[in-house]
Protein backbone atom coordinates (compact mmCIF):
# COMPACT_ATOMS: atom_id res chain seq x y z
CA UNK A 1 0.00 0.00 0.00
CA UNK A 2 1.48 3.32 -1.06
CA UNK A 3 0.42 6.58 0.55
CA UNK A 4 3.26 8.74 -0.76
CA UNK A 5 2.33 11.68 -2.93
CA UNK A 6 4.52 13.38 -5.46
CA UNK A 7 3.68 17.07 -5.48
CA UNK A 8 5.72 19.50 -7.61
CA UNK A 9 8.52 16.93 -7.71
CA UNK A 10 8.65 16.69 -3.92
CA UNK A 11 7.80 13.41 -2.17
CA UNK A 12 5.34 13.59 0.75
CA UNK A 13 5.09 10.41 2.87
CA UNK A 14 1.32 10.90 3.21
CA UNK A 15 -1.16 13.50 1.89
CA UNK A 16 -1.79 15.36 5.18
CA UNK A 17 -0.15 18.77 5.45
CA UNK A 18 -0.19 21.20 8.36
CA UNK A 19 -1.91 24.31 6.99
CA UNK A 20 -0.17 27.66 7.33
CA UNK A 21 -1.00 29.68 10.44
CA UNK A 22 -1.55 26.71 12.75
CA UNK A 23 1.31 26.23 15.26
CA UNK A 24 4.62 26.96 13.52
CA UNK A 25 5.72 29.99 15.59
CA UNK A 26 8.53 27.86 17.02
CA UNK A 27 10.57 25.57 14.72
CA UNK A 28 10.30 22.71 17.21
CA UNK A 29 6.50 22.84 17.00
CA UNK A 30 6.77 21.78 13.33
CA UNK A 31 8.88 18.85 14.50
CA UNK A 32 6.15 17.98 17.00
CA UNK A 33 3.55 18.01 14.20
CA UNK A 34 5.71 15.63 12.15
CA UNK A 35 6.22 13.33 15.13
CA UNK A 36 2.42 13.26 15.31
CA UNK A 37 2.15 11.97 11.76
CA UNK A 38 1.89 14.89 9.30
CA UNK A 39 3.09 14.26 5.75
CA UNK A 40 4.07 17.89 5.27
CA UNK A 41 4.32 21.09 7.29
CA UNK A 42 3.74 24.70 6.30
CA UNK A 43 5.28 27.64 8.14
CA UNK A 44 3.25 30.57 9.34
CA UNK A 45 3.16 33.42 6.83
CA UNK A 46 6.57 35.05 6.98
CA UNK A 47 6.89 38.80 6.54
CA UNK A 48 10.09 40.67 5.73
CA UNK A 49 9.96 42.45 9.06
CA UNK A 50 8.08 42.16 12.35
CA UNK A 51 4.30 42.22 12.00
CA UNK A 52 2.24 42.41 15.18
CA UNK A 53 -1.16 41.00 14.28
CA UNK A 54 -4.39 41.77 16.13
CA UNK A 55 -5.21 41.91 19.85
CA UNK A 56 -7.39 39.13 21.29
CA UNK A 57 -9.63 37.31 21.07
CA UNK A 58 -7.94 36.10 17.89
CA UNK A 59 -9.65 32.76 17.45
CA UNK A 60 -12.42 30.59 18.80
CA UNK A 61 -14.66 27.75 17.80
CA UNK A 62 -17.80 25.73 18.33
CA UNK A 63 -18.55 22.21 17.19
CA UNK A 64 -19.65 23.66 13.84
CA UNK A 65 -17.16 26.34 12.91
CA UNK A 66 -13.87 27.95 13.77
CA UNK A 67 -13.20 31.66 13.26
CA UNK A 68 -9.95 33.56 13.47
CA UNK A 69 -8.45 36.98 13.03
CA UNK A 70 -4.90 36.53 14.24
CA UNK A 71 -3.64 39.10 11.73
CA UNK A 72 -0.54 37.17 10.62
CA UNK A 73 1.76 38.00 13.53
CA UNK A 74 5.37 37.23 12.67
CA UNK A 75 8.86 38.10 13.79
CA UNK A 76 10.19 38.62 10.25
CA UNK A 77 12.53 36.74 7.91
CA UNK A 78 15.52 36.51 10.30
CA UNK A 79 13.39 34.79 12.93
CA UNK A 80 11.99 32.47 10.25
CA UNK A 81 15.53 31.61 9.17
CA UNK A 82 16.46 30.48 12.68
CA UNK A 83 13.24 28.51 13.32
CA UNK A 84 12.85 26.89 9.88
CA UNK A 85 16.55 25.97 9.69
CA UNK A 86 16.15 24.25 13.03
CA UNK A 87 13.32 22.15 11.62
CA UNK A 88 15.20 21.43 8.39
CA UNK A 89 18.33 20.30 10.23
CA UNK A 90 16.29 17.95 12.41
CA UNK A 91 14.38 16.63 9.37
CA UNK A 92 17.60 15.97 7.46
CA UNK A 93 18.92 13.97 10.40
CA UNK A 94 15.99 11.56 10.07
CA UNK A 95 16.09 8.42 7.89
CA UNK A 96 15.10 9.33 4.33
CA UNK A 97 11.72 7.57 4.38
CA UNK A 98 10.77 9.54 7.49
CA UNK A 99 11.68 12.94 6.10
CA UNK A 100 8.78 15.36 5.80
CA UNK A 101 8.87 18.31 3.39
CA UNK A 102 8.63 21.91 4.56
CA UNK A 103 6.51 24.48 2.76
CA UNK A 104 7.64 28.04 3.48
CA UNK A 105 4.69 30.41 3.37
CA UNK A 106 5.40 34.06 2.53
CA UNK A 107 3.28 37.20 2.63
CA UNK A 108 3.80 40.84 1.66
CA UNK A 109 1.84 44.02 1.18
CA UNK A 110 3.33 45.00 -2.17
CA UNK A 111 4.86 43.45 -5.30
CA UNK A 112 8.24 44.91 -4.34
CA UNK A 113 8.10 43.27 -0.91
CA UNK A 114 7.01 39.98 -2.47
CA UNK A 115 10.28 40.02 -4.44
CA UNK A 116 12.31 40.59 -1.27
CA UNK A 117 10.52 38.03 0.88
CA UNK A 118 10.78 35.46 -1.94
CA UNK A 119 14.55 36.01 -2.05
CA UNK A 120 14.73 35.65 1.72
CA UNK A 121 12.73 32.42 1.71
CA UNK A 122 14.79 31.05 -1.19
CA UNK A 123 17.92 31.49 0.93
CA UNK A 124 16.32 29.52 3.76
CA UNK A 125 15.55 26.81 1.21
CA UNK A 126 12.28 25.02 2.05
CA UNK A 127 11.05 22.29 -0.34
CA UNK A 128 8.25 24.50 -1.68
CA UNK A 129 7.35 28.19 -1.36
CA UNK A 130 3.67 28.99 -0.79
CA UNK A 131 2.56 32.55 -1.55
CA UNK A 132 -0.19 33.91 0.70
CA UNK A 133 -2.15 36.35 -1.44
CA UNK A 134 -5.40 35.63 0.33
CA UNK A 135 -5.32 36.21 4.07
CA UNK A 136 -8.53 37.98 5.06
CA UNK A 137 -6.99 39.25 8.29
CA UNK A 138 -4.38 41.71 7.18
CA UNK A 139 -5.37 45.20 8.24
CA UNK A 140 -8.73 46.00 6.75
CA UNK A 141 -8.08 44.39 3.43
CA UNK A 142 -10.27 41.47 2.59
CA UNK A 143 -7.77 39.48 0.61
CA UNK A 144 -7.35 42.44 -1.71
CA UNK A 145 -5.52 43.46 -3.71
CA UNK A 146 -3.89 40.19 -4.80
CA UNK A 147 -6.20 37.19 -4.50
CA UNK A 148 -9.35 38.90 -5.66
CA UNK A 149 -8.06 40.06 -9.00
CA UNK A 150 -6.59 37.85 -11.72
CA UNK A 151 -4.08 40.52 -12.77
CA UNK A 152 -2.79 41.13 -9.23
CA UNK A 153 -2.69 37.41 -8.41
CA UNK A 154 -0.69 36.82 -11.58
CA UNK A 155 1.68 39.68 -10.82
CA UNK A 156 2.40 38.39 -7.29
CA UNK A 157 2.97 34.89 -8.64
CA UNK A 158 5.33 36.11 -11.34
CA UNK A 159 7.52 38.19 -9.03
CA UNK A 160 7.84 35.38 -6.48
CA UNK A 161 8.62 32.85 -9.22
CA UNK A 162 11.30 35.18 -10.55
CA UNK A 163 12.99 35.37 -7.15
CA UNK A 164 12.47 31.85 -5.85
CA UNK A 165 15.27 30.17 -7.83
CA UNK A 166 14.63 26.48 -8.37
CA UNK A 167 12.18 26.09 -5.47
CA UNK A 168 8.66 25.25 -6.70
CA UNK A 169 6.17 28.08 -6.10
CA UNK A 170 2.54 27.47 -5.18
CA UNK A 171 -0.09 30.13 -4.55
CA UNK A 172 -2.70 30.09 -1.79
CA UNK A 173 -6.00 31.34 -3.19
CA UNK A 174 -8.98 33.01 -1.59
CA UNK A 175 -12.28 31.13 -1.78
CA UNK A 176 -14.15 34.43 -1.54
CA UNK A 177 -14.19 35.21 -5.23
CA UNK A 178 -16.83 34.80 -7.91
CA UNK A 179 -14.72 32.63 -10.19
CA UNK A 180 -11.80 30.88 -8.52
CA UNK A 181 -10.91 29.14 -11.78
CA UNK A 182 -10.12 32.49 -13.41
CA UNK A 183 -7.69 33.45 -10.61
CA UNK A 184 -6.20 29.95 -10.69
CA UNK A 185 -5.57 30.19 -14.43
CA UNK A 186 -3.89 33.57 -14.02
CA UNK A 187 -1.52 32.10 -11.40
CA UNK A 188 -0.81 29.07 -13.59
CA UNK A 189 -0.06 31.28 -16.58
CA UNK A 190 2.29 33.35 -14.40
CA UNK A 191 4.39 30.37 -13.42
CA UNK A 192 2.70 28.84 -10.36
CA UNK A 193 3.59 25.16 -10.09
CA UNK A 194 0.72 24.38 -7.73
CA UNK A 195 -2.18 25.98 -5.86
CA UNK A 196 -3.48 25.85 -2.32
CA UNK A 197 -7.28 25.92 -2.24
CA UNK A 198 -8.12 27.69 -0.16
CA UNK A 199 -7.79 30.21 2.62
CA UNK A 200 -10.64 30.78 5.12
CA UNK A 201 -14.14 31.79 4.06
CA UNK A 202 -15.85 35.02 4.88
CA UNK A 203 -15.18 37.17 6.60
CA UNK A 204 -17.57 36.10 9.31
CA UNK A 205 -18.55 37.68 12.60
CA UNK A 206 -19.65 36.51 16.04
CA UNK A 207 -21.53 38.98 18.28
CA UNK A 208 -21.89 38.58 22.03
CA UNK A 209 -25.53 39.37 22.76
CA UNK A 210 -24.97 40.24 26.43
CA UNK A 211 -22.70 43.15 25.55
CA UNK A 212 -23.77 43.68 21.91
CA UNK A 213 -20.09 43.54 20.92
CA UNK A 214 -18.40 41.60 18.12
CA UNK A 215 -16.12 39.16 19.98
CA UNK A 216 -13.06 39.10 17.73
CA UNK A 217 -10.97 42.20 18.41
CA UNK A 218 -10.74 42.59 14.64
CA UNK A 219 -14.56 42.29 14.58
CA UNK A 220 -14.43 40.01 11.53
CA UNK A 221 -12.43 36.86 10.85
CA UNK A 222 -11.91 34.00 8.44
CA UNK A 223 -14.22 31.03 8.92
CA UNK A 224 -13.01 27.44 8.88
CA UNK A 225 -13.93 24.18 10.60
CA UNK A 226 -16.42 21.40 9.81
CA UNK A 227 -19.16 23.70 8.45
CA UNK A 228 -17.14 24.95 5.48
CA UNK A 229 -16.11 21.55 4.12
CA UNK A 230 -18.68 21.28 1.29
CA UNK A 231 -17.90 24.83 0.19
CA UNK A 232 -14.18 24.07 0.14
CA UNK A 233 -14.61 20.78 -1.74
CA UNK A 234 -16.45 22.70 -4.47
CA UNK A 235 -13.63 25.29 -4.65
CA UNK A 236 -11.12 22.48 -5.16
CA UNK A 237 -13.36 20.92 -7.82
CA UNK A 238 -13.69 24.25 -9.65
CA UNK A 239 -9.95 24.91 -9.47
CA UNK A 240 -9.01 21.41 -10.60
CA UNK A 241 -11.40 21.83 -13.54
CA UNK A 242 -9.65 25.02 -14.58
CA UNK A 243 -5.92 24.20 -14.29
CA UNK A 244 -3.44 21.37 -14.84
CA UNK A 245 -1.12 22.15 -11.90
CA UNK A 246 -1.56 20.14 -8.66
CA UNK A 247 -3.58 21.35 -5.69
CA UNK A 248 -3.35 21.27 -1.91
CA UNK A 249 -7.02 21.17 -0.88
CA UNK A 250 -8.22 22.24 2.54
CA UNK A 251 -11.20 23.46 4.53
CA UNK A 252 -12.89 21.62 7.38
CA UNK A 253 -10.83 18.42 7.11
CA UNK A 254 -11.36 16.32 10.24
CA UNK A 255 -11.08 12.69 9.17
CA UNK A 256 -9.40 10.34 6.73
CA UNK A 257 -12.63 10.16 4.74
CA UNK A 258 -12.56 13.97 4.39
CA UNK A 259 -9.04 13.70 2.95
CA UNK A 260 -10.22 11.12 0.39
CA UNK A 261 -13.13 13.41 -0.54
CA UNK A 262 -10.82 16.36 -1.21
CA UNK A 263 -8.49 14.13 -3.23
CA UNK A 264 -11.39 12.86 -5.35
CA UNK A 265 -12.32 16.50 -6.01
CA UNK A 266 -8.83 17.04 -7.41
CA UNK A 267 -6.46 17.71 -4.50
CA UNK A 268 -3.11 15.87 -4.41
CA UNK A 269 -2.36 16.93 -0.84
CA UNK A 270 -4.81 17.95 1.87
CA UNK A 271 -4.26 20.62 4.50
CA UNK A 272 -5.36 20.32 8.10
CA UNK A 273 -5.72 23.46 10.21
CA UNK A 274 -8.78 23.76 12.42
CA UNK A 275 -8.66 19.96 12.71
CA UNK A 276 -5.91 20.53 15.29
CA UNK A 277 -8.50 22.32 17.44
CA UNK A 278 -11.07 19.54 17.13
CA UNK A 279 -8.82 16.49 17.45
CA UNK A 280 -5.56 17.86 18.89
CA UNK A 281 -2.18 17.68 17.16
CA UNK A 282 -2.72 13.90 17.14
CA UNK A 283 -5.23 14.53 14.30
CA UNK A 284 -2.51 13.75 11.74
CA UNK A 285 -1.77 10.21 12.88
CA UNK A 286 -5.49 9.53 13.36
CA UNK A 287 -6.32 10.77 9.86
CA UNK A 288 -3.47 8.76 8.32
CA UNK A 289 -4.72 5.61 10.09
CA UNK A 290 -8.24 6.31 8.79
CA UNK A 291 -6.94 6.74 5.22
CA UNK A 292 -5.07 3.46 5.53
CA UNK A 293 -8.22 1.72 6.73
CA UNK A 294 -10.14 3.10 3.76
CA UNK A 295 -7.43 2.02 1.33
CA UNK A 296 -7.52 -1.54 2.69
CA UNK A 297 -11.31 -1.71 2.59
CA UNK A 298 -11.45 -0.39 -0.94
CA UNK A 299 -8.37 -2.22 -2.20
CA UNK A 300 -6.60 0.97 -3.22
CA UNK A 301 -2.91 0.19 -3.64
CA UNK A 302 -1.68 3.63 -4.62
CA UNK A 303 -3.33 6.66 -3.06
CA UNK A 304 -2.14 9.10 -5.72
CA UNK A 305 -4.39 7.28 -8.24
CA UNK A 306 -7.55 8.62 -6.61
CA UNK A 307 -6.67 12.28 -7.25
CA UNK A 308 -9.53 13.77 -9.26
CA UNK A 309 -11.45 10.48 -9.38
CA UNK A 310 -14.85 12.14 -8.92
CA UNK A 311 -13.96 14.97 -11.25
CA UNK A 312 -12.90 12.77 -14.14
CA UNK A 313 -16.14 10.79 -14.22
Amino acid at each position, binding site marked *: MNMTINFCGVTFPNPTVLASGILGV*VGDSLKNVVINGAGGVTSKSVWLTRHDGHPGPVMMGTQNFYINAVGLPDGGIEKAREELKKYMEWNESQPEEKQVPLIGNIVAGSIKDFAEIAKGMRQIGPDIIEVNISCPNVEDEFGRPFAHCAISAGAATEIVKKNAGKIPVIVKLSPNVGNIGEIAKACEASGAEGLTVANTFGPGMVIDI*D*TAEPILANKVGGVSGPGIKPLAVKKVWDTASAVKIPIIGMGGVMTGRDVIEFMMAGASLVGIGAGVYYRGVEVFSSVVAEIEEWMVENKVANLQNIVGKALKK
Partner: protein
Amino acid sequence: MNDIPRVLKIVEVRMENPMVKTYIFKGNLGAKPGQFVNVWMPRVDEKPFSVAYCDDKEFWLTIAAVGPFTKKLHKDFVKGSKLGVRGPYGNGYTVLKNKHIVLLAGGYGAAPLYFLAHESVKNGCKVEFIVGAKNKDLLLYTEMISKMENVSLHIATDDGSVGMKGYNTLILEKLLAEQNGSSDGHGIAELFVATCGPEVMMKSAMDICEKADVPIEVSIERYMKCGTGVCGNCCVDGLGVPVCKKGPVMRGEMARKISGLAKWHRDNVGLKINW
Protein backbone atom coordinates in the same frame (compact mmCIF):
# COMPACT_ATOMS: atom_id res chain seq x y z
CA MET B 1 -17.20 21.95 22.05
CA ASN B 2 -17.64 25.65 22.59
CA ASP B 3 -14.91 28.19 23.14
CA ILE B 4 -16.94 31.35 22.71
CA PRO B 5 -16.53 33.65 25.75
CA ARG B 6 -19.40 33.71 28.27
CA VAL B 7 -20.03 37.18 29.63
CA LEU B 8 -20.18 37.18 33.43
CA LYS B 9 -20.72 39.84 36.08
CA ILE B 10 -18.04 40.54 38.64
CA VAL B 11 -19.85 39.90 41.94
CA GLU B 12 -17.07 41.11 44.22
CA VAL B 13 -13.65 42.74 44.04
CA ARG B 14 -11.21 42.07 46.87
CA MET B 15 -8.04 44.12 47.40
CA GLU B 16 -5.15 41.73 48.14
CA ASN B 17 -2.20 44.14 48.20
CA PRO B 18 -1.33 47.45 46.51
CA MET B 19 -0.70 45.64 43.20
CA VAL B 20 -3.23 42.85 43.28
CA LYS B 21 -7.02 42.48 43.24
CA THR B 22 -9.19 39.37 43.24
CA TYR B 23 -12.24 39.35 40.95
CA ILE B 24 -14.99 36.98 42.03
CA PHE B 25 -17.51 35.54 39.57
CA LYS B 26 -20.61 33.41 40.19
CA GLY B 27 -21.13 30.13 38.36
CA ASN B 28 -19.64 26.67 38.05
CA LEU B 29 -16.48 27.02 35.98
CA GLY B 30 -15.37 23.46 36.72
CA ALA B 31 -11.69 24.37 36.95
CA LYS B 32 -8.93 22.35 38.63
CA PRO B 33 -5.98 24.00 40.44
CA GLY B 34 -3.39 25.17 37.90
CA GLN B 35 -5.87 25.67 35.06
CA PHE B 36 -6.49 29.08 33.54
CA VAL B 37 -9.18 31.06 31.73
CA ASN B 38 -9.01 33.62 28.93
CA VAL B 39 -10.59 36.90 30.00
CA TRP B 40 -12.10 39.06 27.28
CA MET B 41 -12.40 42.80 27.71
CA PRO B 42 -14.59 43.91 24.79
CA ARG B 43 -12.81 46.20 22.31
CA VAL B 44 -9.55 45.90 24.22
CA ASP B 45 -7.95 42.44 24.29
CA GLU B 46 -8.09 38.98 25.77
CA LYS B 47 -5.54 37.63 28.28
CA PRO B 48 -5.03 34.35 30.18
CA PHE B 49 -5.27 34.25 34.00
CA SER B 50 -4.88 31.31 36.34
CA VAL B 51 -7.79 30.36 38.57
CA ALA B 52 -7.17 31.20 42.23
CA TYR B 53 -10.17 29.34 43.57
CA CYS B 54 -13.16 27.49 42.16
CA ASP B 55 -16.08 25.52 43.55
CA ASP B 56 -19.51 24.73 42.12
CA LYS B 57 -20.82 28.20 42.98
CA GLU B 58 -18.03 30.70 42.29
CA PHE B 59 -14.51 31.24 41.06
CA TRP B 60 -11.76 33.78 41.70
CA LEU B 61 -9.19 35.42 39.45
CA THR B 62 -6.37 37.12 41.32
CA ILE B 63 -4.79 39.68 39.03
CA ALA B 64 -1.85 42.05 39.38
CA ALA B 65 -1.86 45.38 37.55
CA VAL B 66 1.28 44.98 35.44
CA GLY B 67 0.40 45.83 31.82
CA PRO B 68 -2.12 47.92 29.87
CA PHE B 69 -4.86 45.23 30.09
CA THR B 70 -4.56 44.60 33.82
CA LYS B 71 -4.14 48.30 34.65
CA LYS B 72 -7.37 49.05 32.78
CA LEU B 73 -9.03 46.14 34.57
CA HIS B 74 -8.03 47.52 38.00
CA LYS B 75 -9.11 51.03 37.06
CA ASP B 76 -12.40 50.49 35.22
CA PHE B 77 -13.83 47.16 36.32
CA VAL B 78 -15.73 47.07 39.59
CA LYS B 79 -18.45 45.02 41.25
CA GLY B 80 -21.23 44.63 38.65
CA SER B 81 -18.96 45.12 35.59
CA LYS B 82 -19.03 42.44 32.93
CA LEU B 83 -16.16 40.46 31.42
CA GLY B 84 -16.04 37.57 28.97
CA VAL B 85 -14.55 34.33 30.22
CA ARG B 86 -13.68 31.15 28.33
CA GLY B 87 -12.07 28.00 29.59
CA PRO B 88 -10.91 26.46 31.82
CA TYR B 89 -7.85 25.61 29.75
CA GLY B 90 -4.68 23.65 30.40
CA ASN B 91 -4.14 20.56 32.50
CA GLY B 92 -3.76 21.59 36.16
CA TYR B 93 -1.72 20.20 39.06
CA THR B 94 -2.06 16.68 40.37
CA VAL B 95 -4.26 16.76 43.46
CA LEU B 96 -3.00 14.01 45.75
CA LYS B 97 -4.72 12.13 48.58
CA ASN B 98 -3.41 11.79 52.13
CA LYS B 99 0.13 12.94 51.27
CA HIS B 100 2.56 15.44 52.71
CA ILE B 101 3.01 18.13 50.08
CA VAL B 102 5.12 21.26 49.77
CA LEU B 103 3.85 24.25 47.81
CA LEU B 104 6.41 26.84 46.73
CA ALA B 105 4.95 30.16 45.61
CA GLY B 106 6.88 33.11 44.28
CA GLY B 107 5.00 36.41 44.01
CA TYR B 108 1.67 36.00 42.21
CA GLY B 109 2.13 32.22 42.18
CA ALA B 110 0.52 32.11 45.63
CA ALA B 111 -2.95 32.46 44.05
CA PRO B 112 -3.17 29.22 42.02
CA LEU B 113 -1.31 27.35 44.76
CA TYR B 114 -3.88 28.55 47.32
CA PHE B 115 -6.47 26.69 45.23
CA LEU B 116 -4.23 23.61 45.14
CA ALA B 117 -3.73 23.80 48.93
CA HIS B 118 -7.48 24.04 49.42
CA GLU B 119 -8.20 20.95 47.29
CA SER B 120 -5.28 18.98 48.75
CA VAL B 121 -6.40 19.59 52.34
CA LYS B 122 -9.90 18.47 51.36
CA ASN B 123 -8.22 15.25 50.18
CA GLY B 124 -6.51 14.68 53.52
CA CYS B 125 -3.10 16.11 52.67
CA LYS B 126 -0.76 17.88 55.06
CA VAL B 127 0.58 21.03 53.38
CA GLU B 128 3.76 23.07 53.83
CA PHE B 129 3.02 26.36 52.03
CA ILE B 130 6.08 28.47 51.29
CA VAL B 131 5.34 31.99 50.06
CA GLY B 132 8.00 34.36 48.82
CA ALA B 133 7.86 37.99 47.74
CA LYS B 134 10.12 41.01 47.36
CA ASN B 135 8.77 42.58 50.52
CA LYS B 136 5.98 42.45 53.11
CA ASP B 137 3.59 44.60 51.03
CA LEU B 138 3.74 42.28 48.02
CA LEU B 139 2.97 39.07 49.92
CA LEU B 140 -0.17 37.44 48.63
CA TYR B 141 -2.83 35.33 50.36
CA THR B 142 -0.74 34.80 53.50
CA GLU B 143 -3.56 35.75 55.87
CA MET B 144 -5.94 33.22 54.33
CA ILE B 145 -3.27 30.54 54.16
CA SER B 146 -2.38 31.05 57.84
CA LYS B 147 -5.98 30.27 58.79
CA MET B 148 -6.19 27.00 56.84
CA GLU B 149 -6.24 23.74 58.76
CA ASN B 150 -3.41 21.27 58.15
CA VAL B 151 -1.42 23.98 56.38
CA SER B 152 1.83 25.40 57.75
CA LEU B 153 2.80 28.77 56.29
CA HIS B 154 6.47 29.63 55.71
CA ILE B 155 7.37 33.13 54.53
CA ALA B 156 10.47 34.50 52.85
CA THR B 157 11.02 38.07 51.68
CA ASP B 158 13.96 39.45 49.73
CA ASP B 159 14.34 42.36 52.15
CA GLY B 160 13.50 40.43 55.30
CA SER B 161 10.55 42.72 56.12
CA VAL B 162 8.69 39.62 57.24
CA GLY B 163 9.65 35.94 57.54
CA MET B 164 13.04 34.69 56.52
CA LYS B 165 15.31 37.08 54.60
CA GLY B 166 16.30 35.62 51.25
CA TYR B 167 14.94 33.30 48.59
CA ASN B 168 12.02 31.04 49.36
CA THR B 169 13.90 28.11 47.78
CA LEU B 170 16.14 28.08 50.88
CA ILE B 171 13.07 27.14 52.92
CA LEU B 172 12.28 24.37 50.43
CA GLU B 173 15.80 23.00 50.78
CA LYS B 174 15.54 23.11 54.55
CA LEU B 175 12.13 21.40 54.61
CA LEU B 176 13.29 18.61 52.34
CA ALA B 177 16.41 18.08 54.46
CA GLU B 178 14.34 17.92 57.66
CA GLN B 179 11.89 15.51 56.12
CA ASN B 180 14.70 13.27 54.99
CA GLY B 181 15.49 12.29 58.56
CA SER B 182 11.97 12.51 59.97
CA SER B 183 10.06 9.59 61.39
CA ASP B 184 6.51 11.01 61.26
CA GLY B 185 5.36 8.38 58.79
CA HIS B 186 5.69 10.92 55.99
CA GLY B 187 9.27 10.19 54.92
CA ILE B 188 10.83 11.97 51.97
CA ALA B 189 9.66 9.19 49.65
CA GLU B 190 6.12 10.37 50.34
CA LEU B 191 6.80 14.03 49.58
CA PHE B 192 5.55 15.96 46.57
CA VAL B 193 6.35 19.55 45.57
CA ALA B 194 4.26 21.91 43.43
CA THR B 195 5.55 25.34 42.49
CA CYS B 196 4.36 28.46 40.72
CA GLY B 197 6.30 31.67 40.26
CA PRO B 198 9.22 33.15 38.34
CA GLU B 199 10.80 30.55 36.05
CA VAL B 200 14.27 31.05 37.53
CA MET B 201 12.85 30.24 40.98
CA MET B 202 11.02 27.18 39.65
CA LYS B 203 14.19 25.99 37.93
CA SER B 204 16.12 26.16 41.25
CA ALA B 205 13.27 24.27 42.90
CA MET B 206 13.55 21.62 40.18
CA ASP B 207 17.27 21.30 40.85
CA ILE B 208 16.69 21.01 44.60
CA CYS B 209 14.02 18.35 44.08
CA GLU B 210 16.10 16.40 41.61
CA LYS B 211 18.94 16.26 44.14
CA ALA B 212 16.54 15.14 46.89
CA ASP B 213 14.75 12.73 44.54
CA VAL B 214 11.36 14.32 45.21
CA PRO B 215 8.79 14.73 42.40
CA ILE B 216 7.88 18.29 41.43
CA GLU B 217 5.29 19.98 39.24
CA VAL B 218 5.94 23.45 37.82
CA SER B 219 3.63 25.89 36.05
CA ILE B 220 5.14 27.24 32.83
CA GLU B 221 4.12 30.71 31.69
CA ARG B 222 4.28 31.60 27.99
CA TYR B 223 2.56 34.18 25.75
CA MET B 224 -0.78 32.49 25.10
CA LYS B 225 -3.40 33.61 22.64
CA CYS B 226 -5.93 30.91 21.70
CA GLY B 227 -5.77 28.67 24.79
CA THR B 228 -6.60 25.66 22.61
CA GLY B 229 -3.27 24.54 21.14
CA VAL B 230 -3.87 26.04 17.71
CA CYS B 231 -2.12 29.40 17.32
CA GLY B 232 1.26 28.04 18.40
CA ASN B 233 2.42 31.18 20.17
CA CYS B 234 3.03 29.41 23.49
CA CYS B 235 4.96 26.44 22.04
CA VAL B 236 8.22 25.85 23.90
CA ASP B 237 11.57 25.12 22.33
CA GLY B 238 12.82 21.58 22.62
CA LEU B 239 9.46 19.96 23.33
CA GLY B 240 7.65 21.88 20.59
CA VAL B 241 4.32 21.52 22.42
CA PRO B 242 1.84 24.31 23.22
CA VAL B 243 1.98 25.12 26.94
CA CYS B 244 -1.73 26.07 26.93
CA LYS B 245 -2.61 22.46 26.13
CA LYS B 246 0.22 20.21 27.36
CA GLY B 247 0.79 22.51 30.34
CA PRO B 248 0.84 24.92 31.96
CA VAL B 249 1.63 22.37 34.65
CA MET B 250 4.48 20.01 33.82
CA ARG B 251 6.42 17.44 35.79
CA GLY B 252 9.99 18.53 36.41
CA GLU B 253 11.33 15.84 34.07
CA MET B 254 9.23 17.23 31.21
CA ALA B 255 9.97 20.90 31.96
CA ARG B 256 13.69 20.05 31.93
CA LYS B 257 13.36 19.22 28.21
CA ILE B 258 12.35 22.81 27.40
CA SER B 259 15.35 24.45 25.73
CA GLY B 260 15.98 27.84 27.23
CA LEU B 261 14.11 27.03 30.46
CA ALA B 262 14.60 29.95 32.86
CA LYS B 263 16.55 31.72 30.10
CA TRP B 264 14.03 32.93 27.50
CA HIS B 265 10.38 33.10 26.57
CA ARG B 266 8.77 34.60 23.47
CA ASP B 267 6.70 37.69 22.70
CA ASN B 268 3.45 38.06 20.72
CA VAL B 269 5.22 37.46 17.41
CA GLY B 270 7.43 34.65 18.68
CA LEU B 271 10.66 36.58 19.13
CA LYS B 272 12.84 35.46 22.03
CA ILE B 273 13.02 37.61 25.16
CA ASN B 274 15.34 36.86 28.08
CA TRP B 275 13.65 36.32 31.44
